[in-house]
């Protein structure tokens, strides 16, 4: 195990730190984008007219029923042929991960809104509120509580999936690790360290999110 004491690991640390920053950047962008996509398509499926409803179903089914790696590679290699301009690794990874996670999020939004009793709509309508107002003031705030556990799982999953961006050479943690191990021939140290970094971030994060869930459940009326 004295491989771990090799100086190559010390040299590798700054590059891995930059990789971690890129991982986090990608994760945050995809998290925000997937929430917005999920909200839009979730509401379309829950309350939209026939066309919007069908569009939302098509979106959800396509992106949930294909592997996210295939989506990322499609955006990176195939889409540029179609639109005739270069798509960066970051953009392709962000598109694939956000649209994939957005499809799952749309289903979480829909299920959460469906859990809100119909009587709430009727009561709000009786008060003369517009549909949009009912949606954003009455239904969504109540639905959010039902969604928190599903979203925390989704976000953890999304964070782990950012590792797939390494396949199209976006310099996040895993790609940095590959580069380092190619130059210094230290795959044991580097890949173990990357696994440890992920575990050290994911386990405390899921613990904190579970605590938050429990607190929200207790404060529920």
């Amino acid at each position, binding site marked *: 195990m004295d491989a771990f004491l090799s100086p190559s690991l010390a040299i590798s640390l700054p590059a891995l730190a930059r990789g971690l920053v890129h991982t986090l950047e990608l994760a945050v962008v995809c998290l925000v984008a997937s929430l917005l996509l999920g909200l839009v398509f979730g509401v379309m499926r829950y309350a939209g007219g026939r066309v919007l409803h069908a569009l939302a179903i098509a979106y959800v089914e396509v992106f949930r029923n294909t592997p996210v790696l295939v989506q990322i590679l499609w955006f990176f290699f195939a889409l540029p042929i179609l639109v005739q301009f270069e798509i960066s690794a970051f953009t392709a990874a962000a598109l694939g991960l956000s649209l994939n996670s957005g499809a799952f999020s749309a289903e979480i939004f829909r299920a959460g809104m469906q859990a809100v009793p119909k009587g709430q709509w009727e009561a709000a309508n009786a008060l003369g509120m517009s549909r949009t107002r009912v949606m954003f003031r009455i239904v969504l705030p109540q639905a959010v509580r039902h969604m928190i556990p599903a979203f925390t799982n989704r976000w953890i999953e999304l964070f782990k999936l950012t590792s*797939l961006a390494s396949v199209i050479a976006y310099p996040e943690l895993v790609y940095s690790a590959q580069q380092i191990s190619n130059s210094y021939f230290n795959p044991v140290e580097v890949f173990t360290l990357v696994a440890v970094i992920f575990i050290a971030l994911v386990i405390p994060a899921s613990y904190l999110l579970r605590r938050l869930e429990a607190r929200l459940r207790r404060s529920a009326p």
Partner: protein
Amino acid sequence: MHYQWDFSVIGDNAGLLLWGLGNTLLLTLIAILIGTPLGLAVALMRLSSRRWLVWPATVYVEVFRAAPALVQLYWLYFALPRLTGLRLGGFEAAAIALSILSSAFLSEVFRGGIASIGKGQWDAARGIGLSYPRMLRTIILPQAIRRMLPVFLERYIELLKTSTIAATVSFGDLLFVAQDISYRTYRTLEIFSAIAVMFFLVILLCSQLTRLVEHRLARSGEFTAR
């Protein structure tokens, strides 16, 4: 410039694409066949009253659920040979990584299913003098598995999608075959769209089957605990 679609490349390589799809399904099946019993064993360890069984199982589940699948695969493929001298091929590395990964997730499903069986069932089984393995096999697991079946099937579908990471270590699955064809023919758009459609159809079929099972179970009065 307008792009000229040419789907003849799909027909020319149909055999190769189907071979890749077969490999994808084979890899998934192996991971299911190894991961499911392994997941049960880990779940039983976690539910045990002996602490020396509980904590290794807990660490196993937490670690393999927290590390991304790709990192686990790369560790087996790039790091393990340096550490042990044992060289794994792309297929072996992917099969082991996916089996371990799915066992960690499935053990949580097993644990939930087993824990959802009422205390009375355990007491009654013990009361008629059944041994622990017999009790599990004849009383507890049949009920737990019925309840958890839709969740299992969902996990298996997830596994099928995750299996595409095997292409990164040169296992000839559907994704790898697609990359190979696109390097040779430059018909990247058609090939990648075609395999997306192939995955879509296979996975849609699987999720429809899952939904059918779910309906059957709901009608037979078995509640699906999630």
